[in-house]
């Protein structure tokens, strides 16, 4: 691909997909600067591939995979040197509190924290207004399972919200039962 064509492609992809990808990176790393770097690295890698003449069918999925791998690699190099882990293994137990967040970030992180890796991905992409078909393509999953993941995620979130809300009434209910 020629320089002009490749750079136009990259610019358009950045416009449509950059922020969504950045949110995914931030979810994985919890650090704004590192997320910026990961996204940039992914886009540059894509650019190099395009310039080399590679045919990339689904650029969103491709860059998301790169970001995921880079984040996992980063985590591996930070923590235990367990090279046989798959990215998803690592990412599922990625420390959500690895760095300090402002309160606004913590709220979202706390919410997403109770979801599985896949559910987080699906939920964020849904909030970035991707169609189910696009989400499925990005994540390499079946289109019909997108709604399943979403439903499960929401159910977990609501259960957690309820748990918090019932914190007070919990004690009172216990008291009432004792009285019985």
């Amino acid at each position, binding site marked *: 691909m020629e320089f002009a064509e490749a750079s136009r492609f990259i610019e358009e992809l950045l416009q449509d997909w950059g922020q969504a990808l950045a949110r995914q990176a931030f979810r994985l790393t919890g650090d704004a600067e590192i997320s910026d770097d990961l996204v940039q690295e992914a886009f540059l890698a894509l650019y190099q591939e395009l310039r080399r003449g590679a045919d990339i069918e689904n650029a969103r999925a491709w860059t998301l995979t790169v970001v995921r791998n880079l984040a996992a690699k980063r985590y591996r190099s930070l923590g235990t040197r367990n090279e046989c882990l798959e990215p998803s293994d690592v990412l599922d137990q990625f420390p959500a509190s690895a760095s300090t967040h402002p309160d606004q970030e913590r709220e979202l992180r706390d919410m997403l924290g109770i979801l599985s890796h896949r559910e987080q991905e699906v939920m964020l992409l*849904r909030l970035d207004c991707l169609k189910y078909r696009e989400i499925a393509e990005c994540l390499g999953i079946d289109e019909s399972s997108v709604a399943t993941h979403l439903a499960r995620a929401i159910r977990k979130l609501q259960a957690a919200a309820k748990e918090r809300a019932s914190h007070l009434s919990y004690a009172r209910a216990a008291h009432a039962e004792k009285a019985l």
Partner: protein
Amino acid sequence: MLKKHCSEEQLIAHLDNELAPALRDEVEEHLSLCWKCRGRRADLENGIHRVSQALDRSTYPPPNWTDRTRRRLLAEMAAQETNRSISFPSSRPALRSWQGPLRIAAALAASVALCVSVYTYWFERDMQVRAHSQIERFVQSDLGLGQQSLHQVMLLELREPNARTAAKELRVEVWSDPAAHRHAIRLHDAGELVHAAWKSSAQVWGSSPGFTDTSRTATPLPNLLETRWTPQEAETQLIAWMGANAWKPLRFAPDMRAFAQEHGSEVGLDVPSPHTIRLRASRARNQITTQWSVDMDTRTNRPQSQTIRWQKDGAVMELRVVTEQEELVAGIAIPPDVFTNPMAEAIATLPLPVQPQPTATELYPSAPTSEQLTESAIRIEFLLHHLPADWTRALEIQEAENVIVVRGVTESENARAVIEAEVNDIAWTRTALQSLDALPAISPLSTEDGALSVAPEPAVESVFPLEKELAAHFVAHAANKDEAAKQLAAFSLRAAQLAAELRAETWALQRLDERFPAERLALASASVQREFSLVRQQRQTAIKTTTAALRAIVLPVFGPLHQKLAQANQITDIGDSNAADAVDDKAATGETTISAASAIDDRIRALLAGGTQLDASPGDALGRVLHALDFLQNGRPDEITVGVIEATSIEH
């Protein structure tokens, strides 16, 4: 139509408009008849809404993220292209036919060429890196300015070197005290004050009309001015550029960096004197050549002067910025009066139009100061919070520049009312509080302009689908079936109304608390603060009263019903309900029934609070009330007993 209840996947896909048309029609038909699924769908919607609100509040990625990343990427890509063009010709096919000395000569020539190209490459690369790193130091020092108390004086000169029109000379003075959130900027043209922006605290601020829109993203200076070819035209753009950065020290470096990193820009540097570095960047685009040069003091990394020069055909335009003074000062050394309106005195002597509106004269006896303005805005909001809850639901407050616009609208079956108040720094312009009397159908505030978001009142159905048990209960307590149907309809209507009232009141209370955090209230006078606690109390009382009313009509009906079900010891749930799953999940995790009971307790609370505790968005009120009640019906007997007892204990 679907025979069973909708699955959660179907409901979510329906919300997201992702169902296949045929299935969508079936689901919609089912939803139109099944309040239970409507309630579940509303729950799911609220779940998504909550996460999306959290996402909205999240500050990453920042608003300028895409632009910033694009610039970084383009710079990186351009750098890679440069490397690519100078890279060694390793992929070239070997010259197999070459023989003997010819081959050696060729090899020699190639290695000389190689050395030259490597040398040139490294040399140029080194220079380029140094220029970029100097620009980076310039940027860092510029960004660092925002952290400390600062006083800047700069001379800005806009001119055409071939002098077709007169040059413009502006002197800009900036004071910045970030620790106290105090900032001020003043522009003088030929000794006369032409523009100012001032901010005496995080809340109190003002500016002259030249600084029109401080919130928009600033266009980089070189792009902004390259279409303006007289100093007078360029001045307007320059002032707009400063307006967009009004609460910061005057900074050029970020724009210069963006310019230098742009694809196709040439960057370089000279050292004209031992302590001066001259950074140069230039680009040619759309037949316009733009050159930017900065003379930087190497000891402080601060610019002494900068020149941006645009050239198109024969025409030349030049902006020259000379730093006359730039010093860090202790916060206390800044005279406090620079942070107030420099034109306040002049305004005070203006003859202000006085409109004969009692509310207005009461609110604004004379030209308000910024503090009074804030207080006025708070008072107007209070006024609105005294109104019925419906009003506050449609409340819209815009704070832009020095104008605060407060608008509210309400619509009921036989009346439509509007309130509109606009306040600006010089005079109040309009305050119109119209009574709840019927008004013409055409309102000056339409929802079409997007300024108002009027939450539609959920339609209360006069007849709703009955559950068997509920019907049986009413039949058992009525003389005949017709009577029972009437009673049931009246019961559900009243319950839904009360639930809607509760929701509105709770919403209004939340809104009140959101709008008036302690720090904002602290700005208001004591009387306003008293008024605040009074309004708050009224809202709380209303919530209590409505709660009691709702309980009074709901518990007599459902209390016996639960007892009956408890005795029958049966679970009537169809099997896919959330509620039953939630109970099962808890049992599976080994928690005692208390936790499930407390979940029921929550449901009761949700019911009594009109659904506000678990979800705050308006929706199908009736469905929600019944959905909450449904949980009571379908839970396990022993848990229900605890739940009901707990609910009763709230009363005492």
